Protein backbone atom coordinates (compact mmCIF):
# COMPACT_ATOMS: atom_id res chain seq x y z
CA UNK A 1 0.00 0.00 0.00
CA UNK A 2 2.62 2.49 1.12
CA UNK A 3 5.00 1.38 -1.60
CA UNK A 4 2.30 1.74 -4.23
CA UNK A 5 1.53 5.27 -3.04
CA UNK A 6 5.19 6.20 -3.30
CA UNK A 7 5.48 4.72 -6.79
CA UNK A 8 2.41 6.71 -7.86
CA UNK A 9 3.98 9.79 -6.32
CA UNK A 10 7.17 9.37 -8.32
CA UNK A 11 5.21 8.95 -11.56
CA UNK A 12 3.11 12.02 -10.72
CA UNK A 13 6.24 14.05 -10.03
CA UNK A 14 7.74 13.00 -13.35
CA UNK A 15 4.57 14.09 -15.18
CA UNK A 16 4.54 17.32 -13.19
CA UNK A 17 8.09 18.08 -14.32
CA UNK A 18 7.01 17.50 -17.93
CA UNK A 19 4.10 19.94 -17.49
CA UNK A 20 6.38 22.58 -15.97
CA UNK A 21 8.86 22.14 -18.78
CA UNK A 22 6.26 22.23 -21.53
CA UNK A 23 4.46 25.24 -20.05
CA UNK A 24 7.62 27.32 -19.77
CA UNK A 25 9.68 26.31 -22.79
CA UNK A 26 7.63 24.68 -25.49
CA UNK A 27 4.37 26.61 -25.49
CA UNK A 28 4.02 29.16 -28.31
CA UNK A 29 6.21 32.16 -27.77
CA UNK A 30 9.93 31.50 -27.78
CA UNK A 31 11.32 31.80 -24.26
CA UNK A 32 14.25 33.90 -25.44
CA UNK A 33 11.91 36.46 -26.97
CA UNK A 34 9.76 36.37 -23.84
CA UNK A 35 12.80 37.32 -21.77
CA UNK A 36 14.37 39.90 -24.06
CA UNK A 37 11.23 41.45 -25.51
CA UNK A 38 10.02 41.67 -29.10
CA UNK A 39 12.56 44.29 -30.15
CA UNK A 40 15.63 42.23 -29.18
CA UNK A 41 18.36 42.00 -31.80
CA UNK A 42 18.69 38.59 -33.51
CA UNK A 43 22.23 38.19 -32.20
CA UNK A 44 21.17 38.58 -28.58
CA UNK A 45 18.26 36.19 -29.05
CA UNK A 46 20.64 33.67 -30.58
CA UNK A 47 23.09 34.00 -27.67
CA UNK A 48 20.34 33.50 -25.10
CA UNK A 49 18.95 30.54 -27.00
CA UNK A 50 22.32 28.86 -26.75
CA UNK A 51 22.63 29.73 -23.05
CA UNK A 52 19.17 28.23 -22.40
CA UNK A 53 19.87 25.24 -24.69
CA UNK A 54 16.92 26.27 -26.84
CA UNK A 55 18.86 25.41 -29.98
CA UNK A 56 18.75 21.70 -29.13
CA UNK A 57 15.94 19.18 -29.57
CA UNK A 58 13.08 19.13 -27.08
CA UNK A 59 14.07 15.85 -25.45
CA UNK A 60 17.64 17.05 -25.14
CA UNK A 61 16.45 20.26 -23.51
CA UNK A 62 14.31 18.35 -21.02
CA UNK A 63 17.21 16.03 -20.21
CA UNK A 64 19.62 18.89 -19.60
CA UNK A 65 17.10 20.55 -17.31
CA UNK A 66 15.97 17.53 -15.27
CA UNK A 67 19.46 16.05 -14.87
CA UNK A 68 20.64 19.50 -13.77
CA UNK A 69 18.10 19.43 -10.95
CA UNK A 70 19.38 16.08 -9.67
CA UNK A 71 23.02 17.07 -9.89
CA UNK A 72 22.54 20.52 -8.38
CA UNK A 73 23.23 22.40 -11.62
CA UNK A 74 20.13 24.57 -11.67
CA UNK A 75 21.64 27.17 -13.95
CA UNK A 76 21.67 30.90 -13.45
CA UNK A 77 18.95 33.48 -13.12
CA UNK A 78 18.25 35.21 -16.43
CA UNK A 79 17.79 38.52 -14.64
CA UNK A 80 20.96 38.92 -12.60
CA UNK A 81 23.04 35.93 -13.74
CA UNK A 82 23.44 34.57 -10.20
CA UNK A 83 22.95 30.86 -9.47
CA UNK A 84 19.29 29.87 -8.99
CA UNK A 85 20.05 27.76 -5.92
CA UNK A 86 21.63 30.68 -4.06
CA UNK A 87 18.49 32.73 -4.70
CA UNK A 88 16.00 30.02 -3.81
CA UNK A 89 17.64 28.22 -0.87
CA UNK A 90 17.16 30.86 1.89
CA UNK A 91 13.66 31.42 0.58
CA UNK A 92 12.78 27.74 0.93
CA UNK A 93 13.90 27.88 4.56
CA UNK A 94 11.87 31.02 5.28
CA UNK A 95 8.76 29.66 3.61
CA UNK A 96 9.12 26.38 5.47
CA UNK A 97 9.16 28.28 8.78
CA UNK A 98 6.00 30.10 7.74
CA UNK A 99 4.18 26.96 6.57
CA UNK A 100 5.12 24.83 9.58
CA UNK A 101 4.17 27.53 12.11
CA UNK A 102 0.87 28.36 10.42
CA UNK A 103 0.02 24.70 9.83
CA UNK A 104 0.73 23.66 13.41
CA UNK A 105 -1.08 26.58 15.05
CA UNK A 106 -3.98 26.26 12.62
CA UNK A 107 -4.35 22.53 13.27
CA UNK A 108 -4.46 22.93 17.06
CA UNK A 109 -6.92 25.83 16.96
CA UNK A 110 -9.13 24.20 14.32
CA UNK A 111 -9.31 20.80 16.02
CA UNK A 112 -10.06 22.34 19.43
CA UNK A 113 -12.78 24.69 18.14
CA UNK A 114 -14.31 21.96 15.96
CA UNK A 115 -14.50 19.46 18.81
CA UNK A 116 -16.07 22.00 21.17
CA UNK A 117 -18.63 23.07 18.55
CA UNK A 118 -19.59 19.44 17.90
CA UNK A 119 -19.99 18.62 21.60
CA UNK A 120 -22.18 21.70 22.09
CA UNK A 121 -24.00 21.09 18.82
CA UNK A 122 -26.76 23.64 18.18
CA UNK A 123 -25.64 25.68 21.18
CA UNK A 124 -24.71 29.37 20.84
CA UNK A 125 -21.00 28.60 20.42
CA UNK A 126 -21.77 26.24 17.55
CA UNK A 127 -24.03 28.77 15.81
CA UNK A 128 -21.67 31.72 16.18
CA UNK A 129 -18.57 29.82 15.09
CA UNK A 130 -20.37 28.22 12.14
CA UNK A 131 -21.44 31.59 10.75
CA UNK A 132 -18.07 33.25 11.36
CA UNK A 133 -16.28 30.30 9.80
CA UNK A 134 -18.50 30.35 6.72
CA UNK A 135 -17.73 34.04 6.20
CA UNK A 136 -13.99 33.62 6.74
CA UNK A 137 -13.75 30.60 4.41
CA UNK A 138 -14.89 32.81 1.56
CA UNK A 139 -12.29 35.53 2.05
CA UNK A 140 -9.25 35.81 -0.22
CA UNK A 141 -5.93 35.75 1.68
CA UNK A 142 -5.01 39.25 0.64
CA UNK A 143 -8.24 40.67 2.07
CA UNK A 144 -7.51 39.00 5.42
CA UNK A 145 -3.93 40.27 5.27
CA UNK A 146 -5.01 43.83 4.47
CA UNK A 147 -7.58 43.74 7.26
CA UNK A 148 -4.87 42.68 9.73
CA UNK A 149 -2.54 45.40 8.47
CA UNK A 150 -5.25 48.03 8.89
CA UNK A 151 -6.14 46.78 12.37
CA UNK A 152 -2.76 45.89 13.84
CA UNK A 153 -0.10 47.85 12.06
CA UNK A 154 -1.30 51.07 10.45
CA UNK A 155 -4.65 52.73 10.87
CA UNK A 156 -5.99 51.46 14.20
CA UNK A 157 -3.09 50.14 16.25
CA UNK A 158 0.65 49.98 15.57
CA UNK A 159 1.58 46.68 17.15
CA UNK A 160 3.44 44.82 14.39
CA UNK A 161 5.41 45.83 11.30
CA UNK A 162 3.33 45.91 8.11
CA UNK A 163 6.19 44.59 6.01
CA UNK A 164 8.38 41.62 6.90
CA UNK A 165 11.55 42.69 5.13
CA UNK A 166 14.48 40.64 6.35
CA UNK A 167 18.03 41.89 5.96
CA UNK A 168 19.84 39.74 3.40
CA UNK A 169 21.58 36.71 4.85
CA UNK A 170 19.27 36.41 7.86
CA UNK A 171 16.54 33.84 8.32
CA UNK A 172 12.96 34.25 9.48
CA UNK A 173 13.60 33.15 13.05
CA UNK A 174 16.03 36.03 13.57
CA UNK A 175 13.09 38.44 13.67
CA UNK A 176 10.05 36.76 15.23
CA UNK A 177 7.93 39.92 15.24
CA UNK A 178 8.07 39.94 11.45
CA UNK A 179 6.46 36.51 11.39
CA UNK A 180 3.39 37.46 13.43
CA UNK A 181 1.19 38.96 10.73
CA UNK A 182 1.99 36.51 7.90
CA UNK A 183 1.45 33.53 10.21
CA UNK A 184 -1.74 35.05 11.64
CA UNK A 185 -3.13 35.58 8.14
CA UNK A 186 -2.46 31.99 7.11
CA UNK A 187 -3.89 30.63 10.37
CA UNK A 188 -7.10 32.63 9.91
CA UNK A 189 -7.43 31.32 6.37
CA UNK A 190 -6.90 27.62 7.15
CA UNK A 191 -8.67 27.23 10.52
CA UNK A 192 -12.20 27.23 9.02
CA UNK A 193 -11.54 24.12 6.93
CA UNK A 194 -10.07 22.14 9.82
CA UNK A 195 -12.89 23.38 12.06
CA UNK A 196 -15.62 22.25 9.65
CA UNK A 197 -14.09 18.83 9.14
CA UNK A 198 -13.43 18.19 12.83
CA UNK A 199 -16.95 19.30 13.72
CA UNK A 200 -18.59 17.15 11.03
CA UNK A 201 -16.50 14.09 11.89
CA UNK A 202 -17.11 14.44 15.64
CA UNK A 203 -20.85 14.88 15.13
CA UNK A 204 -20.88 11.77 12.96
CA UNK A 205 -18.93 9.76 15.55
CA UNK A 206 -21.19 10.94 18.39
CA UNK A 207 -24.27 9.73 16.52
CA UNK A 208 -22.76 6.33 15.73
CA UNK A 209 -23.91 2.95 17.01
CA UNK A 210 -20.87 2.35 19.21
CA UNK A 211 -21.41 5.61 21.07
CA UNK A 212 -25.08 4.70 21.52
CA UNK A 213 -23.98 1.32 22.82
CA UNK A 214 -21.50 2.86 25.25
CA UNK A 215 -24.19 5.24 26.52
CA UNK A 216 -26.60 2.36 27.09
CA UNK A 217 -23.90 0.51 28.99
CA UNK A 218 -23.64 3.52 31.27
CA UNK A 219 -20.15 4.67 30.30
CA UNK A 220 -19.63 8.19 31.68
CA UNK A 221 -20.00 10.95 29.06
CA UNK A 222 -16.41 12.29 29.34
CA UNK A 223 -15.13 8.77 28.67
CA UNK A 224 -17.38 8.38 25.64
CA UNK A 225 -16.07 11.64 24.19
CA UNK A 226 -12.39 11.03 24.91
CA UNK A 227 -12.16 7.29 24.30
CA UNK A 228 -14.81 6.58 21.68
CA UNK A 229 -15.82 9.61 19.67
CA UNK A 230 -12.71 11.79 19.26
CA UNK A 231 -10.27 9.04 18.18
CA UNK A 232 -12.64 8.16 15.34
CA UNK A 233 -12.90 11.78 14.27
CA UNK A 234 -9.14 12.16 14.04
CA UNK A 235 -8.52 10.31 10.76
CA UNK A 236 -10.66 12.49 8.49
CA UNK A 237 -9.29 15.53 10.27
CA UNK A 238 -5.71 14.44 9.60
CA UNK A 239 -6.62 14.33 5.92
CA UNK A 240 -7.89 17.88 6.14
CA UNK A 241 -4.82 19.04 8.03
CA UNK A 242 -2.78 17.49 5.22
CA UNK A 243 -4.96 19.24 2.66
CA UNK A 244 -4.26 22.48 4.48
CA UNK A 245 -0.52 22.07 4.20
CA UNK A 246 -1.20 21.63 0.50
CA UNK A 247 -3.33 24.73 0.54
CA UNK A 248 -0.54 26.61 2.33
CA UNK A 249 1.81 25.80 -0.56
CA UNK A 250 -0.37 28.08 -2.69
CA UNK A 251 -1.46 30.46 0.06
CA UNK A 252 2.08 31.59 0.86
CA UNK A 253 2.41 33.12 -2.61
CA UNK A 254 -0.01 35.96 -1.92
CA UNK A 255 0.70 36.30 1.79
CA UNK A 256 4.46 36.58 1.26
CA UNK A 257 3.87 39.15 -1.46
CA UNK A 258 1.61 41.27 0.77
CA UNK A 259 4.13 41.37 3.61
CA UNK A 260 7.22 41.42 1.40
CA UNK A 261 8.34 38.29 3.21
CA UNK A 262 11.38 36.78 1.46
CA UNK A 263 10.09 33.27 0.75
CA UNK A 264 9.64 31.21 -2.39
CA UNK A 265 6.12 32.57 -2.96
CA UNK A 266 7.39 36.11 -3.28
CA UNK A 267 10.33 34.79 -5.29
CA UNK A 268 7.90 33.16 -7.70
CA UNK A 269 5.86 36.34 -8.18
CA UNK A 270 9.06 38.32 -8.85
CA UNK A 271 10.30 35.67 -11.26
CA UNK A 272 7.01 35.58 -13.18
CA UNK A 273 6.96 39.36 -13.58
CA UNK A 274 10.56 39.39 -14.86
CA UNK A 275 10.07 36.10 -16.77
CA UNK A 276 13.06 34.55 -15.07
CA UNK A 277 12.33 31.08 -16.42
CA UNK A 278 14.93 28.93 -14.60
CA UNK A 279 13.73 30.38 -11.27
CA UNK A 280 10.04 29.85 -12.15
CA UNK A 281 10.68 26.24 -13.18
CA UNK A 282 12.54 25.38 -10.02
CA UNK A 283 10.15 27.05 -7.57
CA UNK A 284 7.06 25.54 -9.19
CA UNK A 285 8.71 22.13 -9.10
CA UNK A 286 9.57 22.55 -5.41
CA UNK A 287 5.97 23.50 -4.58
CA UNK A 288 4.56 20.58 -6.57
CA UNK A 289 7.00 18.13 -4.97
CA UNK A 290 5.95 19.40 -1.55
CA UNK A 291 2.35 18.79 -2.57
CA UNK A 292 2.97 15.21 -3.70
CA UNK A 293 5.03 14.33 -0.61
CA UNK A 294 2.50 15.80 1.84
CA UNK A 295 -0.25 13.87 0.08
CA UNK A 296 1.53 10.56 0.57
CA UNK A 297 2.43 11.33 4.17
CA UNK A 298 -1.15 12.27 5.15
CA UNK A 299 -2.55 9.19 3.44
CA UNK A 300 -0.21 6.95 5.39
CA UNK A 301 -0.85 8.71 8.71
CA UNK A 302 -4.61 8.62 8.20
CA UNK A 303 -4.34 4.93 7.44
CA UNK A 304 -2.46 4.31 10.66
CA UNK A 305 -4.87 6.48 12.66
CA UNK A 306 -8.05 4.65 11.64
CA UNK A 307 -8.58 1.82 14.14
CA UNK A 308 -10.92 -0.08 11.81
CA UNK A 309 -8.55 0.02 8.87
CA UNK A 310 -5.53 -0.92 10.92
CA UNK A 311 -7.23 -4.13 11.92
CA UNK A 312 -8.50 -4.82 8.41
CA UNK A 313 -4.96 -4.85 7.03
Amino acid sequence: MVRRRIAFGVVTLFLVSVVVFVATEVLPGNAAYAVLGRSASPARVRALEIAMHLNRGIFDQYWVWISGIFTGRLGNSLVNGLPVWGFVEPRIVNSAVLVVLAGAIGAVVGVALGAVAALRKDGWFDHVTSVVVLAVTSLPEFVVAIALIILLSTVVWHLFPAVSLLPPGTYAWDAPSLLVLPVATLVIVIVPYIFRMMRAATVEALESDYVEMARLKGVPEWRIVLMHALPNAVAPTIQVIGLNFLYLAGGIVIVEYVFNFPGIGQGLVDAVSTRDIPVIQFIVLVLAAFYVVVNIVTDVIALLATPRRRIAR
Partner: protein
Amino acid sequence: MRQQWGSVLSAAVRTPRGAIGLGLASFVVLVAVIGPFVAPHASDALVTLDFGKPSGQYLLGGDYLGEDVVSRVLDGGWVLLIMAACATALGIAGGGAAGVSAAYLRGRSDGIIMRTVDVILAFPQLVFALLLLSLLGPKLWLITIAVGVSHAPQVARVIRSATLDVTERDFVKAAELQGMRPARVMVREILPNLVSPLMVEAGLRLTYSIVIISGLAFLGFGQAPPAPNWGLMISENRTGLTLNPWAVIVPAAMIALLTIGTNTFTDAFARVTIGVDRRPEEAALIDDLSQEPGT
Protein backbone atom coordinates in the same frame (compact mmCIF):
# COMPACT_ATOMS: atom_id res chain seq x y z
CA MET B 1 -36.30 19.53 -15.21
CA ARG B 2 -36.38 23.27 -15.27
CA GLN B 3 -39.09 23.41 -12.64
CA GLN B 4 -36.97 21.24 -10.38
CA TRP B 5 -34.08 23.67 -10.50
CA GLY B 6 -36.43 26.53 -9.90
CA SER B 7 -38.01 24.98 -6.83
CA VAL B 8 -34.64 24.03 -5.32
CA LEU B 9 -33.26 27.50 -5.96
CA SER B 10 -36.26 29.21 -4.40
CA ALA B 11 -36.10 26.84 -1.42
CA ALA B 12 -32.48 27.90 -0.96
CA VAL B 13 -33.41 31.59 -1.21
CA ARG B 14 -36.03 31.16 1.50
CA THR B 15 -33.44 30.00 4.06
CA PRO B 16 -31.84 32.84 6.05
CA ARG B 17 -28.38 31.99 4.75
CA GLY B 18 -29.58 31.78 1.18
CA ALA B 19 -31.31 35.16 1.39
CA ILE B 20 -28.30 36.86 2.97
CA GLY B 21 -25.89 35.30 0.48
CA LEU B 22 -27.97 36.23 -2.54
CA GLY B 23 -28.50 39.74 -1.18
CA LEU B 24 -24.79 40.40 -0.67
CA ALA B 25 -23.78 38.98 -4.05
CA SER B 26 -26.56 40.83 -5.88
CA PHE B 27 -25.55 44.12 -4.27
CA VAL B 28 -21.95 43.77 -5.49
CA VAL B 29 -23.04 42.61 -8.95
CA LEU B 30 -25.36 45.60 -9.23
CA VAL B 31 -22.58 48.01 -8.26
CA ALA B 32 -20.26 46.40 -10.82
CA VAL B 33 -22.84 46.44 -13.62
CA ILE B 34 -24.48 49.83 -13.09
CA GLY B 35 -21.34 51.47 -11.70
CA PRO B 36 -19.61 52.30 -15.00
CA PHE B 37 -22.70 54.26 -16.14
CA VAL B 38 -23.06 56.36 -13.00
CA ALA B 39 -19.38 56.97 -12.15
CA PRO B 40 -18.98 60.75 -11.64
CA HIS B 41 -15.48 60.95 -13.15
CA ALA B 42 -13.43 59.08 -15.71
CA SER B 43 -11.66 56.37 -13.74
CA ASP B 44 -8.23 57.52 -14.94
CA ALA B 45 -8.77 61.28 -14.61
CA LEU B 46 -6.42 62.97 -12.14
CA VAL B 47 -9.02 65.09 -10.39
CA THR B 48 -7.95 65.35 -6.77
CA LEU B 49 -4.87 65.09 -4.53
CA ASP B 50 -2.74 61.96 -4.11
CA PHE B 51 -4.36 60.04 -1.25
CA GLY B 52 -6.62 63.08 -0.70
CA LYS B 53 -8.97 62.80 2.27
CA PRO B 54 -12.65 62.15 1.58
CA SER B 55 -14.59 65.38 0.94
CA GLY B 56 -18.07 66.41 -0.20
CA GLN B 57 -17.03 66.24 -3.84
CA TYR B 58 -14.84 63.10 -3.60
CA LEU B 59 -16.68 60.92 -1.13
CA LEU B 60 -13.93 58.34 -0.74
CA GLY B 61 -11.02 60.67 -1.43
CA GLY B 62 -8.20 60.19 -3.94
CA ASP B 63 -5.96 57.26 -4.76
CA TYR B 64 -2.17 57.08 -5.21
CA LEU B 65 -2.30 59.26 -8.33
CA GLY B 66 -5.15 61.53 -7.28
CA GLU B 67 -7.84 59.64 -9.20
CA ASP B 68 -11.37 59.58 -7.76
CA VAL B 69 -11.78 56.43 -5.62
CA VAL B 70 -15.59 56.39 -5.97
CA SER B 71 -15.37 56.30 -9.77
CA ARG B 72 -12.71 53.63 -9.73
CA VAL B 73 -14.71 51.43 -7.35
CA LEU B 74 -17.81 51.80 -9.55
CA ASP B 75 -15.83 51.00 -12.67
CA GLY B 76 -13.51 48.33 -11.27
CA GLY B 77 -15.67 45.22 -10.87
CA TRP B 78 -17.21 44.19 -14.15
CA VAL B 79 -14.09 42.77 -15.79
CA LEU B 80 -13.49 40.64 -12.69
CA LEU B 81 -17.09 39.36 -12.77
CA ILE B 82 -16.97 38.43 -16.47
CA MET B 83 -13.62 36.67 -16.10
CA ALA B 84 -14.78 34.76 -13.00
CA ALA B 85 -18.01 33.66 -14.71
CA CYS B 86 -16.17 32.45 -17.82
CA ALA B 87 -13.49 30.62 -15.80
CA THR B 88 -16.21 28.91 -13.74
CA ALA B 89 -18.15 27.86 -16.83
CA LEU B 90 -14.97 26.49 -18.38
CA GLY B 91 -14.00 24.58 -15.25
CA ILE B 92 -17.48 23.09 -14.77
CA ALA B 93 -17.83 22.10 -18.43
CA GLY B 94 -14.35 20.58 -18.67
CA GLY B 95 -14.34 18.97 -15.23
CA GLY B 96 -17.92 17.73 -15.58
CA ALA B 97 -17.25 16.12 -18.96
CA ALA B 98 -14.06 14.51 -17.65
CA GLY B 99 -15.75 13.26 -14.47
CA VAL B 100 -18.77 11.76 -16.23
CA SER B 101 -16.64 10.08 -18.91
CA ALA B 102 -14.21 8.67 -16.35
CA ALA B 103 -16.99 7.15 -14.26
CA TYR B 104 -19.10 5.87 -17.14
CA LEU B 105 -16.45 4.60 -19.53
CA ARG B 106 -14.30 3.08 -16.74
CA GLY B 107 -11.19 1.12 -17.67
CA ARG B 108 -8.44 2.86 -19.54
CA SER B 109 -10.29 6.18 -20.05
CA ASP B 110 -10.89 6.37 -16.31
CA GLY B 111 -7.21 5.70 -15.64
CA ILE B 112 -5.96 8.31 -18.08
CA ILE B 113 -8.40 10.99 -16.97
CA MET B 114 -7.80 10.52 -13.26
CA ARG B 115 -4.02 10.43 -13.76
CA THR B 116 -4.22 13.77 -15.55
CA VAL B 117 -6.36 15.05 -12.69
CA ASP B 118 -3.71 13.97 -10.16
CA VAL B 119 -0.99 15.75 -12.09
CA ILE B 120 -2.84 19.07 -12.32
CA LEU B 121 -3.90 18.77 -8.68
CA ALA B 122 -0.23 18.70 -7.67
CA PHE B 123 -0.03 22.41 -8.57
CA PRO B 124 -1.64 24.87 -6.17
CA GLN B 125 -4.25 26.66 -8.31
CA LEU B 126 -2.63 30.07 -8.12
CA VAL B 127 0.78 28.60 -8.93
CA PHE B 128 -0.66 26.76 -11.94
CA ALA B 129 -2.10 30.03 -13.24
CA LEU B 130 1.24 31.83 -12.66
CA LEU B 131 3.06 29.05 -14.53
CA LEU B 132 0.84 29.45 -17.59
CA LEU B 133 1.20 33.23 -17.45
CA SER B 134 4.98 33.13 -17.31
CA LEU B 135 5.61 32.91 -21.04
CA LEU B 136 2.80 34.87 -22.66
CA GLY B 137 2.34 37.48 -19.95
CA PRO B 138 -0.84 38.45 -18.13
CA LYS B 139 -3.37 38.39 -20.98
CA LEU B 140 -6.93 38.45 -19.62
CA TRP B 141 -8.10 35.53 -21.82
CA LEU B 142 -5.11 33.46 -20.71
CA ILE B 143 -5.82 34.14 -17.03
CA THR B 144 -9.44 33.08 -17.54
CA ILE B 145 -8.42 29.84 -19.27
CA ALA B 146 -5.70 29.09 -16.72
CA VAL B 147 -8.10 29.50 -13.79
CA GLY B 148 -10.78 27.44 -15.57
CA VAL B 149 -8.35 24.62 -16.28
CA SER B 150 -7.11 24.67 -12.68
CA HIS B 151 -10.72 24.13 -11.48
CA ALA B 152 -11.38 21.17 -13.77
CA PRO B 153 -9.62 18.42 -11.75
CA GLN B 154 -11.50 19.21 -8.53
CA VAL B 155 -14.81 19.29 -10.39
CA ALA B 156 -13.92 16.04 -12.18
CA ARG B 157 -13.32 14.27 -8.86
CA VAL B 158 -16.63 15.28 -7.32
CA ILE B 159 -18.64 14.60 -10.49
CA ARG B 160 -16.94 11.26 -11.02
CA SER B 161 -18.08 9.97 -7.63
CA ALA B 162 -21.59 11.38 -8.19
CA THR B 163 -21.74 9.65 -11.59
CA LEU B 164 -20.67 6.30 -10.15
CA ASP B 165 -23.88 6.28 -8.07
CA VAL B 166 -26.07 7.15 -11.06
CA THR B 167 -24.60 4.55 -13.43
CA GLU B 168 -25.75 1.76 -11.11
CA ARG B 169 -29.41 2.69 -11.52
CA ASP B 170 -31.91 0.72 -13.60
CA PHE B 171 -32.79 3.39 -16.15
CA VAL B 172 -29.17 3.56 -17.23
CA LYS B 173 -29.09 -0.22 -17.66
CA ALA B 174 -32.38 -0.03 -19.58
CA ALA B 175 -31.01 2.60 -21.95
CA GLU B 176 -27.89 0.51 -22.53
CA LEU B 177 -29.95 -2.60 -23.29
CA GLN B 178 -31.88 -0.61 -25.89
CA GLY B 179 -28.56 -0.11 -27.61
CA MET B 180 -28.12 3.59 -26.86
CA ARG B 181 -24.63 4.85 -27.66
CA PRO B 182 -22.41 5.68 -24.64
CA ALA B 183 -22.19 9.39 -25.51
CA ARG B 184 -25.98 9.58 -25.67
CA VAL B 185 -26.41 7.70 -22.40
CA MET B 186 -24.09 10.14 -20.70
CA VAL B 187 -25.85 13.24 -22.03
CA ARG B 188 -29.48 12.09 -21.96
CA GLU B 189 -29.62 9.72 -19.00
CA ILE B 190 -26.81 10.56 -16.61
CA LEU B 191 -26.28 14.31 -16.91
CA PRO B 192 -29.85 15.30 -15.88
CA ASN B 193 -29.26 13.48 -12.60
CA LEU B 194 -26.15 15.49 -11.83
CA VAL B 195 -27.76 18.92 -11.82
CA SER B 196 -27.53 19.45 -8.04
CA PRO B 197 -23.89 18.46 -7.58
CA LEU B 198 -22.99 20.46 -10.68
CA MET B 199 -24.73 23.55 -9.36
CA VAL B 200 -23.10 23.24 -5.94
CA GLU B 201 -19.72 22.87 -7.65
CA ALA B 202 -20.48 25.88 -9.85
CA GLY B 203 -21.15 28.00 -6.77
CA LEU B 204 -17.95 26.88 -5.06
CA ARG B 205 -15.84 27.36 -8.19
CA LEU B 206 -17.32 30.80 -8.75
CA THR B 207 -16.18 31.83 -5.29
CA TYR B 208 -12.70 30.41 -5.88
CA SER B 209 -12.53 32.02 -9.34
CA ILE B 210 -13.20 35.42 -7.80
CA VAL B 211 -10.59 34.76 -5.09
CA ILE B 212 -7.90 33.65 -7.56
CA ILE B 213 -8.56 36.20 -10.30
CA SER B 214 -8.72 39.13 -7.88
CA GLY B 215 -5.60 37.70 -6.19
CA LEU B 216 -3.75 37.63 -9.51
CA ALA B 217 -4.84 41.23 -10.14
CA PHE B 218 -3.54 42.11 -6.69
CA LEU B 219 -0.18 40.55 -7.60
CA GLY B 220 -0.13 42.70 -10.74
CA PHE B 221 -1.20 39.98 -13.19
CA GLY B 222 -4.41 41.30 -14.60
CA GLN B 223 -5.51 44.59 -16.07
CA ALA B 224 -2.56 46.97 -16.29
CA PRO B 225 -2.71 50.41 -14.65
CA PRO B 226 -4.41 52.84 -15.07
CA ALA B 227 -7.35 50.45 -15.59
CA PRO B 228 -9.54 50.33 -12.47
CA ASN B 229 -9.67 46.90 -10.84
CA TRP B 230 -10.59 46.12 -7.22
CA GLY B 231 -7.70 43.71 -6.73
CA LEU B 232 -5.15 46.04 -8.28
CA MET B 233 -6.55 49.06 -6.36
CA ILE B 234 -5.80 47.36 -3.03
CA SER B 235 -2.21 46.81 -4.02
CA GLU B 236 -1.74 50.28 -5.59
CA ASN B 237 -3.12 52.17 -2.64
CA ARG B 238 -1.77 50.27 0.34
CA THR B 239 1.28 52.55 0.62
CA GLY B 240 -1.16 55.33 1.54
CA LEU B 241 -3.13 53.40 4.15
CA THR B 242 -2.51 55.98 6.86
CA LEU B 243 -3.44 58.91 4.56
CA ASN B 244 -6.59 57.58 2.92
CA PRO B 245 -7.48 54.06 4.07
CA TRP B 246 -10.77 54.17 2.10
CA ALA B 247 -8.94 53.68 -1.18
CA VAL B 248 -8.01 50.21 0.14
CA ILE B 249 -10.92 49.38 2.44
CA VAL B 250 -13.72 49.89 -0.08
CA PRO B 251 -12.37 47.70 -2.93
CA ALA B 252 -11.37 45.04 -0.36
CA ALA B 253 -14.88 45.16 1.09
CA MET B 254 -16.43 44.76 -2.37
CA ILE B 255 -14.41 41.60 -3.02
CA ALA B 256 -15.13 40.30 0.49
CA LEU B 257 -18.90 40.90 0.23
CA LEU B 258 -18.97 39.22 -3.17
CA THR B 259 -17.14 36.07 -2.07
CA ILE B 260 -19.03 35.86 1.23
CA GLY B 261 -22.26 36.25 -0.74
CA THR B 262 -21.58 33.56 -3.34
CA ASN B 263 -20.17 31.17 -0.76
CA THR B 264 -23.01 31.62 1.71
CA PHE B 265 -25.61 31.12 -1.00
CA THR B 266 -23.81 27.99 -2.23
CA ASP B 267 -23.80 26.68 1.31
CA ALA B 268 -27.55 27.24 1.62
CA PHE B 269 -28.10 25.60 -1.76
CA ALA B 270 -25.99 22.58 -0.80
CA ARG B 271 -27.95 22.17 2.45
CA VAL B 272 -31.26 22.21 0.56
CA THR B 273 -30.27 19.88 -2.28
CA ILE B 274 -27.83 17.42 -0.80
CA GLY B 275 -29.27 17.83 2.66
CA VAL B 276 -25.93 17.64 4.41
CA ASP B 277 -24.04 19.97 6.56
CA ARG B 278 -20.87 19.68 4.59
CA ARG B 279 -19.30 20.45 1.27
CA PRO B 280 -19.18 17.90 -1.52
CA GLU B 281 -15.39 17.86 -1.25
CA GLU B 282 -15.58 17.06 2.46
CA ALA B 283 -18.26 14.45 1.86
CA ALA B 284 -16.11 12.83 -0.84
CA LEU B 285 -13.24 12.69 1.62
CA ILE B 286 -15.32 10.90 4.23
CA ASP B 287 -16.55 8.47 1.56
CA ASP B 288 -12.95 7.79 0.56
CA LEU B 289 -12.05 6.98 4.13
CA SER B 290 -14.98 4.69 4.77
CA GLN B 291 -14.27 2.55 1.73
CA GLU B 292 -12.47 -0.72 2.28
CA PRO B 293 -8.70 -0.36 2.15
CA GLY B 294 -6.81 -1.41 -0.93
CA THR B 295 -9.47 -0.25 -3.38
